[in-house]
Protein backbone atom coordinates (compact mmCIF):
# COMPACT_ATOMS: atom_id res chain seq x y z
CA UNK A 1 0.00 0.00 0.00
CA UNK A 2 1.38 3.37 -0.98
CA UNK A 3 1.07 6.40 1.22
CA UNK A 4 -2.36 6.91 2.70
CA UNK A 5 -3.97 10.34 2.44
CA UNK A 6 -5.54 12.01 5.46
CA UNK A 7 -9.07 10.70 4.69
CA UNK A 8 -7.80 7.12 4.36
CA UNK A 9 -5.93 7.48 7.63
CA UNK A 10 -8.87 9.06 9.41
CA UNK A 11 -11.22 6.29 8.24
CA UNK A 12 -8.81 3.61 9.42
CA UNK A 13 -8.05 5.27 12.76
CA UNK A 14 -11.75 5.56 13.59
CA UNK A 15 -11.89 1.78 13.23
CA UNK A 16 -8.55 1.10 14.90
CA UNK A 17 -9.02 3.24 18.02
CA UNK A 18 -12.11 1.41 19.37
CA UNK A 19 -10.69 -1.96 18.38
CA UNK A 20 -7.39 -1.44 20.19
CA UNK A 21 -9.16 0.14 23.18
CA UNK A 22 -11.10 -3.10 23.60
CA UNK A 23 -7.97 -5.26 23.21
CA UNK A 24 -5.33 -3.91 25.56
CA UNK A 25 -1.78 -4.81 24.58
CA UNK A 26 -2.50 -5.92 21.02
CA UNK A 27 0.54 -6.16 18.75
CA UNK A 28 1.30 -3.42 16.22
CA UNK A 29 1.71 -5.98 13.43
CA UNK A 30 -1.75 -7.34 13.99
CA UNK A 31 -3.32 -3.88 13.78
CA UNK A 32 -1.33 -3.09 10.65
CA UNK A 33 -2.50 -6.24 8.95
CA UNK A 34 -6.14 -6.14 10.00
CA UNK A 35 -6.62 -2.54 9.02
CA UNK A 36 -4.25 -2.35 6.06
CA UNK A 37 -2.12 0.37 7.65
CA UNK A 38 1.60 0.31 6.90
CA UNK A 39 3.30 -0.33 10.20
CA UNK A 40 5.66 2.62 10.19
CA UNK A 41 2.82 5.06 9.47
CA UNK A 42 0.66 3.41 12.07
CA UNK A 43 3.27 3.77 14.74
CA UNK A 44 3.91 7.40 13.86
CA UNK A 45 0.22 8.28 13.69
CA UNK A 46 -0.53 6.69 17.04
CA UNK A 47 2.34 8.46 18.80
CA UNK A 48 2.32 11.77 16.95
CA UNK A 49 -1.37 12.27 16.23
CA UNK A 50 -3.80 10.14 18.22
CA UNK A 51 -1.83 10.86 21.39
CA UNK A 52 -2.74 14.57 20.98
CA UNK A 53 -6.42 14.15 20.35
CA UNK A 54 -8.94 15.23 22.93
CA UNK A 55 -11.46 17.90 23.78
CA UNK A 56 -11.21 21.39 25.16
CA UNK A 57 -9.36 22.36 27.38
CA UNK A 58 -6.90 19.61 26.32
CA UNK A 59 -5.69 18.87 29.83
CA UNK A 60 -4.28 15.34 30.30
CA UNK A 61 -7.63 14.09 31.64
CA UNK A 62 -9.43 15.18 28.48
CA UNK A 63 -7.07 13.54 26.01
CA UNK A 64 -6.57 10.10 24.57
CA UNK A 65 -3.71 8.15 26.14
CA UNK A 66 -1.61 5.96 23.88
CA UNK A 67 1.16 3.76 25.15
CA UNK A 68 3.48 1.53 23.22
CA UNK A 69 5.71 -1.01 24.84
CA UNK A 70 7.69 -3.63 22.99
CA UNK A 71 5.34 -3.27 19.97
CA UNK A 72 2.27 -3.76 22.11
CA UNK A 73 -0.31 -0.98 22.08
CA UNK A 74 -2.69 0.37 24.67
CA UNK A 75 -5.28 3.08 24.02
CA UNK A 76 -7.21 4.53 26.95
CA UNK A 77 -9.69 7.36 27.52
CA UNK A 78 -10.86 7.45 23.94
CA UNK A 79 -14.50 7.60 25.00
CA UNK A 80 -15.73 9.58 21.98
CA UNK A 81 -14.36 6.85 19.75
CA UNK A 82 -15.37 3.92 21.93
CA UNK A 83 -17.48 2.49 19.11
CA UNK A 84 -16.63 2.32 15.42
CA UNK A 85 -18.38 4.54 12.91
CA UNK A 86 -21.44 2.80 11.53
CA UNK A 87 -21.45 1.42 7.99
CA UNK A 88 -22.65 3.74 5.22
CA UNK A 89 -25.74 2.55 3.36
CA UNK A 90 -23.61 1.45 0.42
CA UNK A 91 -21.14 -0.38 2.63
CA UNK A 92 -24.01 -2.17 4.34
CA UNK A 93 -25.51 -3.17 0.99
CA UNK A 94 -22.13 -4.35 -0.31
CA UNK A 95 -21.53 -6.71 2.60
CA UNK A 96 -25.09 -8.01 2.83
CA UNK A 97 -25.31 -8.48 -0.93
CA UNK A 98 -21.97 -10.28 -1.12
CA UNK A 99 -22.82 -12.48 1.86
CA UNK A 100 -26.30 -13.36 0.62
CA UNK A 101 -25.10 -14.16 -2.90
CA UNK A 102 -22.27 -16.36 -1.76
CA UNK A 103 -24.55 -18.12 0.68
CA UNK A 104 -27.06 -18.80 -2.07
CA UNK A 105 -24.31 -20.14 -4.32
CA UNK A 106 -22.91 -22.46 -1.69
CA UNK A 107 -26.29 -23.63 -0.46
CA UNK A 108 -24.88 -23.74 3.10
CA UNK A 109 -27.44 -23.84 5.84
CA UNK A 110 -25.05 -23.19 8.67
CA UNK A 111 -21.52 -21.94 9.19
CA UNK A 112 -19.70 -18.69 9.81
CA UNK A 113 -21.05 -16.86 6.76
CA UNK A 114 -24.66 -17.44 7.77
CA UNK A 115 -23.78 -16.62 11.37
CA UNK A 116 -22.04 -13.37 10.39
CA UNK A 117 -24.83 -12.35 8.03
CA UNK A 118 -27.51 -13.00 10.62
CA UNK A 119 -25.69 -10.89 13.20
CA UNK A 120 -25.04 -8.15 10.67
CA UNK A 121 -28.66 -8.09 9.49
CA UNK A 122 -29.89 -7.89 13.08
CA UNK A 123 -27.47 -5.08 13.97
CA UNK A 124 -28.50 -3.10 10.89
CA UNK A 125 -32.18 -3.75 11.47
CA UNK A 126 -32.87 -5.27 8.05
CA UNK A 127 -34.31 -8.68 7.40
CA UNK A 128 -36.55 -8.76 4.35
CA UNK A 129 -35.43 -5.47 2.87
CA UNK A 130 -32.72 -6.70 0.53
CA UNK A 131 -32.88 -9.49 -2.01
CA UNK A 132 -30.09 -10.49 -4.35
CA UNK A 133 -30.40 -12.85 -7.28
CA UNK A 134 -27.22 -12.85 -9.30
CA UNK A 135 -28.62 -15.13 -11.91
CA UNK A 136 -30.88 -18.05 -12.45
CA UNK A 137 -29.36 -21.37 -13.30
CA UNK A 138 -30.16 -24.93 -12.34
CA UNK A 139 -28.43 -25.77 -9.09
CA UNK A 140 -27.14 -29.19 -10.28
CA UNK A 141 -25.45 -27.50 -13.22
CA UNK A 142 -23.87 -24.85 -11.02
CA UNK A 143 -22.55 -27.55 -8.69
CA UNK A 144 -21.18 -29.61 -11.54
CA UNK A 145 -19.36 -26.67 -13.14
CA UNK A 146 -17.93 -25.44 -9.87
CA UNK A 147 -16.64 -28.91 -9.11
CA UNK A 148 -15.12 -29.11 -12.57
CA UNK A 149 -13.35 -25.77 -12.10
CA UNK A 150 -12.00 -26.66 -8.66
CA UNK A 151 -10.88 -30.15 -9.65
CA UNK A 152 -9.79 -29.08 -13.15
CA UNK A 153 -11.86 -31.75 -14.86
CA UNK A 154 -13.01 -31.73 -18.47
CA UNK A 155 -16.76 -31.35 -19.07
CA UNK A 156 -18.65 -32.78 -22.06
CA UNK A 157 -21.27 -30.22 -22.99
CA UNK A 158 -24.52 -30.22 -24.91
CA UNK A 159 -24.93 -26.55 -25.59
CA UNK A 160 -27.62 -24.52 -27.31
CA UNK A 161 -26.02 -21.72 -29.33
CA UNK A 162 -28.69 -19.06 -29.23
CA UNK A 163 -27.27 -16.80 -31.95
CA UNK A 164 -26.96 -19.65 -34.46
CA UNK A 165 -30.04 -21.41 -33.11
CA UNK A 166 -28.37 -24.80 -33.01
CA UNK A 167 -27.47 -27.48 -30.54
CA UNK A 168 -23.79 -28.44 -30.29
CA UNK A 169 -21.71 -31.06 -28.52
CA UNK A 170 -18.21 -30.27 -27.29
CA UNK A 171 -15.60 -30.82 -24.57
CA UNK A 172 -14.58 -27.83 -22.51
CA UNK A 173 -11.97 -27.04 -19.85
CA UNK A 174 -13.88 -24.70 -17.53
CA UNK A 175 -11.84 -22.01 -15.77
CA UNK A 176 -14.08 -19.37 -14.33
CA UNK A 177 -17.65 -19.03 -13.22
CA UNK A 178 -19.27 -15.62 -13.10
CA UNK A 179 -22.52 -13.67 -13.19
CA UNK A 180 -23.23 -10.73 -15.44
CA UNK A 181 -26.46 -8.86 -16.12
CA UNK A 182 -28.40 -11.44 -14.18
CA UNK A 183 -27.05 -14.51 -15.92
CA UNK A 184 -24.44 -17.09 -14.98
CA UNK A 185 -21.58 -17.82 -17.35
CA UNK A 186 -18.64 -20.14 -17.44
CA UNK A 187 -15.52 -19.23 -19.37
CA UNK A 188 -13.55 -22.14 -20.67
CA UNK A 189 -11.12 -23.39 -23.21
CA UNK A 190 -13.30 -25.05 -25.83
CA UNK A 191 -11.65 -28.05 -27.47
CA UNK A 192 -13.98 -27.89 -30.47
CA UNK A 193 -13.05 -24.30 -31.28
CA UNK A 194 -9.54 -24.73 -29.82
CA UNK A 195 -10.04 -21.30 -28.31
CA UNK A 196 -11.49 -19.56 -25.33
CA UNK A 197 -15.30 -19.39 -25.18
CA UNK A 198 -17.92 -18.09 -22.78
CA UNK A 199 -21.02 -20.23 -22.18
CA UNK A 200 -24.30 -19.15 -20.65
CA UNK A 201 -25.09 -21.70 -17.98
CA UNK A 202 -28.86 -21.75 -18.54
CA UNK A 203 -28.30 -22.70 -22.21
CA UNK A 204 -26.39 -25.84 -21.32
CA UNK A 205 -28.77 -28.62 -22.24
CA UNK A 206 -26.73 -31.36 -20.58
CA UNK A 207 -23.29 -31.67 -19.05
CA UNK A 208 -21.15 -34.63 -18.15
CA UNK A 209 -18.28 -34.35 -15.67
CA UNK A 210 -15.49 -36.56 -16.98
CA UNK A 211 -12.53 -37.99 -15.05
CA UNK A 212 -10.04 -36.37 -17.41
CA UNK A 213 -8.15 -33.46 -15.88
CA UNK A 214 -6.59 -30.43 -17.58
CA UNK A 215 -3.98 -27.75 -16.88
CA UNK A 216 -5.31 -24.23 -16.37
CA UNK A 217 -4.45 -21.83 -19.16
CA UNK A 218 -5.55 -18.66 -17.37
CA UNK A 219 -8.34 -17.54 -19.68
CA UNK A 220 -8.99 -13.86 -20.08
CA UNK A 221 -12.79 -14.06 -20.09
CA UNK A 222 -13.27 -11.76 -23.03
CA UNK A 223 -16.60 -10.21 -23.84
CA UNK A 224 -18.88 -12.83 -25.29
CA UNK A 225 -19.32 -10.88 -28.50
CA UNK A 226 -16.47 -10.53 -30.97
CA UNK A 227 -17.49 -10.46 -34.63
CA UNK A 228 -15.12 -11.91 -37.22
CA UNK A 229 -13.88 -9.88 -40.13
CA UNK A 230 -15.57 -12.29 -42.50
CA UNK A 231 -19.02 -11.74 -40.94
CA UNK A 232 -21.35 -9.83 -43.26
CA UNK A 233 -22.07 -6.22 -42.33
CA UNK A 234 -25.49 -4.66 -42.81
CA UNK A 235 -26.97 -1.25 -42.21
CA UNK A 236 -30.31 -1.40 -40.47
CA UNK A 237 -32.54 1.65 -40.57
CA UNK A 238 -34.89 1.77 -37.58
CA UNK A 239 -37.70 4.14 -36.67
CA UNK A 240 -37.79 6.10 -33.41
CA UNK A 241 -39.83 3.22 -31.89
CA UNK A 242 -36.92 0.87 -32.34
CA UNK A 243 -34.02 3.22 -31.67
CA UNK A 244 -33.31 1.19 -28.49
CA UNK A 245 -31.64 -1.37 -30.77
CA UNK A 246 -28.64 0.97 -30.96
CA UNK A 247 -28.19 0.75 -27.20
CA UNK A 248 -28.96 -2.90 -26.72
CA UNK A 249 -27.13 -4.53 -29.59
CA UNK A 250 -23.38 -4.43 -30.04
CA UNK A 251 -22.87 -2.44 -33.22
CA UNK A 252 -20.21 -0.85 -35.36
CA UNK A 253 -21.65 2.62 -35.75
CA UNK A 254 -24.88 4.58 -35.37
CA UNK A 255 -26.11 7.55 -37.39
CA UNK A 256 -29.01 9.28 -35.72
CA UNK A 257 -31.78 10.54 -37.99
CA UNK A 258 -33.79 13.73 -37.61
CA UNK A 259 -37.05 11.89 -36.99
CA UNK A 260 -35.60 10.03 -33.97
CA UNK A 261 -34.72 6.93 -35.94
CA UNK A 262 -31.24 5.65 -36.64
CA UNK A 263 -29.02 3.82 -39.12
CA UNK A 264 -27.10 1.10 -37.33
CA UNK A 265 -24.19 -0.87 -38.73
CA UNK A 266 -24.30 -4.44 -37.46
CA UNK A 267 -22.03 -7.44 -37.89
CA UNK A 268 -24.16 -10.47 -38.66
CA UNK A 269 -22.39 -13.14 -36.63
CA UNK A 270 -25.20 -15.62 -37.20
CA UNK A 271 -28.30 -15.62 -39.34
CA UNK A 272 -30.92 -16.60 -36.69
CA UNK A 273 -29.77 -13.66 -34.65
CA UNK A 274 -30.78 -11.25 -37.42
CA UNK A 275 -33.98 -13.15 -38.17
CA UNK A 276 -35.09 -12.69 -34.57
CA UNK A 277 -34.37 -9.01 -34.63
CA UNK A 278 -36.23 -8.43 -37.92
CA UNK A 279 -39.31 -10.43 -37.05
CA UNK A 280 -39.60 -8.67 -33.70
CA UNK A 281 -39.21 -5.21 -35.18
CA UNK A 282 -41.50 -5.72 -38.21
CA UNK A 283 -42.05 -2.45 -40.07
CA UNK A 284 -39.92 -0.52 -37.56
CA UNK A 285 -36.76 -1.74 -39.29
CA UNK A 286 -35.44 -2.41 -42.76
CA UNK A 287 -32.07 -3.39 -44.13
CA UNK A 288 -30.85 -0.57 -46.37
CA UNK A 289 -27.40 -1.92 -47.11
CA UNK A 290 -25.96 -5.42 -47.28
CA UNK A 291 -29.14 -7.31 -48.24
CA UNK A 292 -27.25 -9.17 -50.96
CA UNK A 293 -25.18 -10.83 -48.23
CA UNK A 294 -28.03 -11.96 -46.01
CA UNK A 295 -30.77 -12.55 -48.53
CA UNK A 296 -33.33 -10.18 -50.00
CA UNK A 297 -36.34 -11.38 -48.10
CA UNK A 298 -35.11 -12.42 -44.72
CA UNK A 299 -38.05 -10.94 -42.83
CA UNK A 300 -40.61 -12.46 -45.22
CA UNK A 301 -39.10 -15.93 -45.17
CA UNK A 302 -38.67 -15.91 -41.41
CA UNK A 303 -42.24 -14.78 -40.80
CA UNK A 304 -43.48 -17.46 -43.23
CA UNK A 305 -41.45 -20.16 -41.50
CA UNK A 306 -42.86 -19.26 -38.07
CA UNK A 307 -46.38 -19.08 -39.53
CA UNK A 308 -46.07 -22.74 -40.54
CA UNK A 309 -46.49 -23.62 -36.88
CA UNK A 310 -49.84 -21.87 -36.75
CA UNK A 311 -51.38 -23.54 -39.83
Amino acid at each position, binding site marked *: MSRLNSSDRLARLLAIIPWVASKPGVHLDEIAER*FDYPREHLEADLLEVVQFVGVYPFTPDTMIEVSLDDDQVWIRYADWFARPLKLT*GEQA*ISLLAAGKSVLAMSGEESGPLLGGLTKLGAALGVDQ*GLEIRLGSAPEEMVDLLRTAITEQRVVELDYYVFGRDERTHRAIEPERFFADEGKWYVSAHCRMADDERVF*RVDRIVAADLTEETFERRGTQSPGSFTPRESDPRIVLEVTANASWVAQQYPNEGVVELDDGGARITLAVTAVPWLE*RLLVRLGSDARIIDGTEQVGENMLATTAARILERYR
Partner: protein
Amino acid sequence: MSKLERLLNLLAALLHTSVPLTAEQLRTRIEGYPDADASFRRAFERDKDDLRTMGIPLKTQTVPGVDPPIDGYRIDPEEYAGSDPQLDPDELAALHLASNLVRFEGVSGDQALARLGGVVGEQEVATVAALPSDDNLGPLFEAVRSKHSVTFRYNDTDRELDPYKLSFLRGHWYLIGYDHVRNDERQFRVDRIDGRVEVGAAATTERPASTDERIESWELGDEEPIVARILVDADQAGWAKHYLGRDAVVQSHDDGSAEFDLVVRNREAFRSFVLTFLDHAELLAPADLRDELISWLEEFAA
Protein backbone atom coordinates in the same frame (compact mmCIF):
# COMPACT_ATOMS: atom_id res chain seq x y z
CA MET B 1 -0.34 20.30 13.34
CA SER B 2 -1.58 17.85 10.73
CA LYS B 3 -4.96 17.89 9.02
CA LEU B 4 -5.54 14.40 10.39
CA GLU B 5 -5.10 15.64 13.95
CA ARG B 6 -7.40 18.61 13.31
CA LEU B 7 -10.11 16.34 11.91
CA LEU B 8 -9.86 13.94 14.86
CA ASN B 9 -10.11 16.82 17.32
CA LEU B 10 -13.05 18.32 15.44
CA LEU B 11 -14.78 14.97 15.55
CA ALA B 12 -14.10 14.51 19.26
CA ALA B 13 -15.48 17.99 20.00
CA LEU B 14 -18.66 17.39 17.95
CA LEU B 15 -19.27 13.97 19.52
CA HIS B 16 -18.54 15.25 23.03
CA THR B 17 -20.87 18.24 23.04
CA SER B 18 -24.54 18.01 23.95
CA VAL B 19 -25.36 21.43 22.49
CA PRO B 20 -24.54 22.59 18.97
CA LEU B 21 -21.17 24.37 18.74
CA THR B 22 -20.74 27.38 16.47
CA ALA B 23 -17.96 27.66 13.91
CA GLU B 24 -16.36 30.36 16.09
CA GLN B 25 -16.38 28.13 19.16
CA LEU B 26 -14.83 25.29 17.20
CA ARG B 27 -12.21 27.65 15.77
CA THR B 28 -11.05 28.71 19.23
CA ARG B 29 -11.12 25.21 20.68
CA ILE B 30 -9.38 23.34 17.92
CA GLU B 31 -5.84 23.98 16.84
CA GLY B 32 -4.71 23.92 13.30
CA TYR B 33 -7.16 26.25 11.52
CA PRO B 34 -5.76 29.19 9.56
CA ASP B 35 -6.01 32.61 11.22
CA ALA B 36 -7.54 34.62 8.39
CA ASP B 37 -11.36 34.51 8.43
CA ALA B 38 -11.79 33.53 4.79
CA SER B 39 -9.16 30.78 4.97
CA PHE B 40 -10.71 29.45 8.16
CA ARG B 41 -14.14 29.34 6.51
CA ARG B 42 -12.80 27.42 3.55
CA ALA B 43 -10.89 24.95 5.71
CA PHE B 44 -13.89 24.44 7.99
CA GLU B 45 -16.23 23.80 5.05
CA ARG B 46 -13.79 21.27 3.62
CA ASP B 47 -13.51 19.49 6.95
CA LYS B 48 -17.30 19.21 7.24
CA ASP B 49 -17.46 17.81 3.70
CA ASP B 50 -14.71 15.30 4.47
CA LEU B 51 -16.57 14.04 7.53
CA ARG B 52 -19.91 13.81 5.74
CA THR B 53 -18.36 11.96 2.81
CA MET B 54 -17.29 9.25 5.24
CA GLY B 55 -20.89 8.85 6.33
CA ILE B 56 -20.48 10.75 9.60
CA PRO B 57 -23.90 12.20 10.58
CA LEU B 58 -22.79 15.78 11.16
CA LYS B 59 -25.91 17.86 11.88
CA THR B 60 -26.39 21.57 11.45
CA GLN B 61 -28.72 22.91 14.15
CA THR B 62 -29.75 26.34 15.36
CA VAL B 63 -27.99 27.21 18.61
CA PRO B 64 -30.70 27.59 21.29
CA GLY B 65 -31.25 30.92 23.03
CA VAL B 66 -29.32 33.10 20.61
CA ASP B 67 -30.81 36.02 18.72
CA PRO B 68 -30.36 36.47 15.80
CA PRO B 69 -30.30 32.69 15.14
CA ILE B 70 -26.92 31.16 14.43
CA ASP B 71 -25.90 27.76 13.05
CA GLY B 72 -24.19 25.25 15.28
CA TYR B 73 -22.84 21.76 14.72
CA ARG B 74 -22.86 18.48 16.57
CA ILE B 75 -22.83 14.73 16.06
CA ASP B 76 -25.19 12.48 17.96
CA PRO B 77 -23.04 9.59 19.25
CA GLU B 78 -25.99 7.23 18.80
CA GLU B 79 -26.22 8.12 15.12
CA TYR B 80 -22.47 8.00 14.71
CA ALA B 81 -21.97 4.45 15.87
CA GLY B 82 -24.02 1.56 14.64
CA SER B 83 -24.91 -1.29 16.88
CA ASP B 84 -21.97 -3.66 16.91
CA PRO B 85 -22.80 -7.08 15.46
CA GLN B 86 -19.91 -8.58 17.51
CA LEU B 87 -18.59 -10.71 14.71
CA ASP B 88 -16.23 -13.57 15.51
CA PRO B 89 -12.98 -13.84 13.54
CA ASP B 90 -14.31 -16.73 11.44
CA GLU B 91 -17.44 -14.72 10.62
CA LEU B 92 -15.31 -11.73 9.60
CA ALA B 93 -13.18 -14.03 7.46
CA ALA B 94 -16.28 -15.51 5.78
CA LEU B 95 -17.63 -12.03 4.99
CA HIS B 96 -14.21 -11.00 3.73
CA LEU B 97 -14.12 -13.92 1.33
CA ALA B 98 -17.69 -13.17 0.22
CA SER B 99 -16.87 -9.50 -0.43
CA ASN B 100 -13.97 -10.58 -2.64
CA LEU B 101 -16.16 -12.98 -4.61
CA VAL B 102 -19.03 -10.55 -5.08
CA ARG B 103 -17.97 -6.94 -5.36
CA PHE B 104 -20.00 -3.79 -5.27
CA GLU B 105 -18.80 -1.01 -7.56
CA GLY B 106 -17.25 1.94 -5.78
CA VAL B 107 -17.19 0.35 -2.32
CA SER B 108 -14.15 -1.18 -0.69
CA GLY B 109 -15.21 -4.29 1.14
CA ASP B 110 -12.12 -3.99 3.30
CA GLN B 111 -13.09 -0.53 4.48
CA ALA B 112 -16.56 -1.70 5.34
CA LEU B 113 -15.13 -4.64 7.26
CA ALA B 114 -12.74 -2.33 9.14
CA ARG B 115 -15.81 -0.81 10.80
CA LEU B 116 -16.81 -4.27 11.98
CA GLY B 117 -13.46 -5.32 13.38
CA GLY B 118 -11.03 -5.46 10.49
CA VAL B 119 -10.04 -7.72 7.68
CA VAL B 120 -9.36 -11.27 8.69
CA GLY B 121 -8.00 -13.99 6.44
CA GLU B 122 -6.15 -13.44 3.20
CA GLN B 123 -7.85 -14.87 0.15
CA GLU B 124 -7.00 -14.38 -3.47
CA VAL B 125 -10.14 -15.34 -5.33
CA ALA B 126 -11.54 -14.51 -8.73
CA THR B 127 -14.55 -12.20 -8.56
CA VAL B 128 -17.74 -13.98 -9.64
CA ALA B 129 -19.90 -10.89 -9.87
CA ALA B 130 -19.67 -7.12 -9.62
CA LEU B 131 -22.90 -5.39 -8.63
CA PRO B 132 -23.49 -1.99 -10.19
CA SER B 133 -23.65 0.98 -7.88
CA ASP B 134 -26.02 3.93 -7.95
CA ASP B 135 -25.92 7.17 -5.96
CA ASN B 136 -29.45 6.56 -4.75
CA LEU B 137 -28.82 3.09 -3.32
CA GLY B 138 -27.31 4.28 -0.04
CA PRO B 139 -30.19 6.64 0.86
CA LEU B 140 -32.77 4.09 -0.37
CA PHE B 141 -31.26 1.38 1.79
CA GLU B 142 -31.36 3.70 4.80
CA ALA B 143 -35.01 4.49 4.04
CA VAL B 144 -35.93 0.79 3.74
CA ARG B 145 -34.03 0.03 6.92
CA SER B 146 -35.51 2.85 8.99
CA LYS B 147 -38.97 2.59 7.34
CA HIS B 148 -39.10 6.14 6.02
CA SER B 149 -40.91 7.30 2.92
CA VAL B 150 -39.01 8.58 -0.11
CA THR B 151 -39.90 10.99 -2.90
CA PHE B 152 -38.38 10.99 -6.37
CA ARG B 153 -39.10 11.61 -10.02
CA TYR B 154 -39.64 8.67 -12.39
CA ASN B 155 -40.97 8.66 -15.94
CA ASP B 156 -41.67 12.41 -15.63
CA THR B 157 -43.93 11.86 -12.62
CA ASP B 158 -43.35 12.72 -8.96
CA ARG B 159 -43.61 9.66 -6.73
CA GLU B 160 -44.03 9.22 -3.03
CA LEU B 161 -43.21 5.75 -1.87
CA ASP B 162 -43.01 3.72 1.33
CA PRO B 163 -40.01 1.60 0.33
CA TYR B 164 -40.28 -2.09 1.22
CA LYS B 165 -37.37 -3.68 -0.47
CA LEU B 166 -34.34 -3.35 -2.72
CA SER B 167 -33.84 -6.25 -5.10
CA PHE B 168 -31.03 -7.05 -7.47
CA LEU B 169 -32.57 -9.08 -10.29
CA ARG B 170 -31.44 -9.82 -13.84
CA GLY B 171 -28.56 -7.44 -13.47
CA HIS B 172 -30.50 -4.42 -12.23
CA TRP B 173 -31.47 -2.84 -8.94
CA TYR B 174 -35.21 -2.52 -8.29
CA LEU B 175 -37.06 -0.63 -5.60
CA ILE B 176 -40.38 -2.06 -4.46
CA GLY B 177 -42.79 -0.18 -2.26
CA TYR B 178 -46.19 1.34 -1.73
CA ASP B 179 -46.81 4.21 -4.14
CA HIS B 180 -48.95 6.88 -2.43
CA VAL B 181 -49.73 8.55 -5.74
CA ARG B 182 -51.07 5.37 -7.42
CA ASN B 183 -52.28 3.88 -4.12
CA ASP B 184 -50.78 0.51 -4.97
CA GLU B 185 -47.61 -1.52 -4.73
CA ARG B 186 -45.20 -0.52 -7.48
CA GLN B 187 -41.68 -1.25 -8.54
CA PHE B 188 -39.04 0.96 -10.09
CA ARG B 189 -35.69 0.45 -11.78
CA VAL B 190 -33.28 2.32 -9.51
CA ASP B 191 -31.05 3.40 -12.41
CA ARG B 192 -34.02 5.06 -14.10
CA ILE B 193 -34.86 7.31 -11.16
CA ASP B 194 -34.45 10.91 -12.23
CA GLY B 195 -32.03 12.80 -9.94
CA ARG B 196 -31.69 12.15 -6.25
CA VAL B 197 -34.25 10.60 -3.92
CA GLU B 198 -35.33 12.58 -0.87
CA VAL B 199 -35.96 10.73 2.36
CA GLY B 200 -39.14 11.99 4.05
CA ALA B 201 -41.28 11.21 7.06
CA ALA B 202 -41.87 7.84 8.69
CA ALA B 203 -43.63 5.36 6.41
CA THR B 204 -47.37 4.97 6.99
CA THR B 205 -47.86 1.51 5.46
CA GLU B 206 -46.51 -1.85 6.63
CA ARG B 207 -44.40 -4.06 4.44
CA PRO B 208 -46.48 -7.05 3.34
CA ALA B 209 -45.23 -10.57 4.01
CA SER B 210 -44.31 -10.95 0.37
CA THR B 211 -43.88 -8.48 -2.44
CA ASP B 212 -44.79 -9.00 -6.05
CA GLU B 213 -41.73 -8.51 -8.23
CA ARG B 214 -42.08 -8.17 -11.96
CA ILE B 215 -39.05 -7.90 -14.11
CA GLU B 216 -39.95 -9.16 -17.56
CA SER B 217 -40.87 -6.65 -20.24
CA TRP B 218 -44.27 -8.30 -20.80
CA GLU B 219 -45.07 -7.99 -17.09
CA LEU B 220 -44.34 -4.28 -17.06
CA GLY B 221 -47.40 -2.66 -18.47
CA ASP B 222 -50.73 -1.18 -17.51
CA GLU B 223 -52.89 -3.47 -19.64
CA GLU B 224 -55.49 -5.76 -18.09
CA PRO B 225 -53.50 -8.87 -17.07
CA ILE B 226 -54.14 -12.01 -19.10
CA VAL B 227 -52.65 -15.48 -18.79
CA ALA B 228 -50.92 -16.61 -21.97
CA ARG B 229 -49.83 -20.16 -22.71
CA ILE B 230 -46.83 -21.00 -24.88
CA LEU B 231 -45.38 -24.30 -26.07
CA VAL B 232 -41.59 -24.42 -26.27
CA ASP B 233 -39.66 -27.10 -28.19
CA ALA B 234 -37.35 -29.54 -26.44
CA ASP B 235 -34.03 -27.86 -27.30
CA GLN B 236 -35.15 -24.56 -25.82
CA ALA B 237 -37.37 -25.90 -23.04
CA GLY B 238 -34.41 -26.38 -20.71
CA TRP B 239 -33.32 -22.79 -20.54
CA ALA B 240 -36.89 -21.53 -20.78
CA LYS B 241 -37.65 -23.41 -17.57
CA HIS B 242 -34.80 -21.72 -15.76
CA TYR B 243 -35.49 -18.37 -17.27
CA LEU B 244 -39.24 -18.34 -16.67
CA GLY B 245 -39.16 -20.32 -13.46
CA ARG B 246 -40.46 -23.81 -12.79
CA ASP B 247 -43.68 -22.35 -11.40
CA ALA B 248 -44.55 -21.24 -14.91
CA VAL B 249 -44.41 -24.78 -16.30
CA VAL B 250 -47.90 -26.26 -16.69
CA GLN B 251 -47.03 -29.32 -18.71
CA SER B 252 -43.88 -31.21 -19.69
CA HIS B 253 -44.29 -33.46 -22.72
CA ASP B 254 -42.51 -36.77 -23.32
CA ASP B 255 -40.62 -35.35 -26.29
CA GLY B 256 -38.98 -32.78 -24.00
CA SER B 257 -41.10 -29.82 -25.00
CA ALA B 258 -42.99 -27.89 -22.34
CA GLU B 259 -45.96 -25.57 -21.90
CA PHE B 260 -45.77 -22.40 -19.84
CA ASP B 261 -48.38 -20.04 -18.43
CA LEU B 262 -47.29 -16.41 -18.14
CA VAL B 263 -49.10 -13.33 -16.92
CA VAL B 264 -49.02 -10.65 -19.59
CA ARG B 265 -49.58 -6.96 -19.00
CA ASN B 266 -47.89 -5.76 -22.17
CA ARG B 267 -48.99 -7.65 -25.30
CA GLU B 268 -46.50 -6.07 -27.66
CA ALA B 269 -43.55 -6.97 -25.43
CA PHE B 270 -44.88 -10.49 -25.08
CA ARG B 271 -45.14 -10.95 -28.85
CA SER B 272 -41.55 -9.84 -29.10
CA PHE B 273 -40.51 -12.39 -26.49
CA VAL B 274 -42.35 -15.28 -28.19
CA LEU B 275 -40.70 -14.37 -31.50
CA THR B 276 -37.19 -14.70 -30.03
CA PHE B 277 -37.86 -18.46 -30.17
CA LEU B 278 -38.37 -18.15 -33.94
CA ASP B 279 -40.23 -21.33 -35.01
CA HIS B 280 -39.32 -23.23 -31.84
CA ALA B 281 -42.29 -22.00 -29.86
CA GLU B 282 -46.00 -21.54 -30.36
CA LEU B 283 -48.39 -19.17 -28.67
CA LEU B 284 -51.35 -21.41 -27.79
CA ALA B 285 -53.79 -19.24 -25.89
CA PRO B 286 -55.71 -17.05 -25.47
CA ALA B 287 -57.13 -17.07 -29.00
CA ASP B 288 -57.11 -13.29 -29.49
CA LEU B 289 -53.44 -13.02 -28.54
CA ARG B 290 -52.63 -15.91 -30.86
CA ASP B 291 -54.56 -14.21 -33.67
CA GLU B 292 -52.68 -10.98 -33.10
CA LEU B 293 -49.40 -12.82 -33.49
CA ILE B 294 -50.61 -14.54 -36.66
CA SER B 295 -51.73 -11.22 -38.18
CA TRP B 296 -48.38 -9.69 -37.31
CA LEU B 297 -46.54 -12.48 -39.12
CA GLU B 298 -48.93 -12.49 -42.09
CA GLU B 299 -48.27 -8.83 -42.65
CA PHE B 300 -44.59 -9.58 -43.38
CA ALA B 301 -44.67 -13.15 -44.65
CA ALA B 302 -43.82 -13.80 -48.29
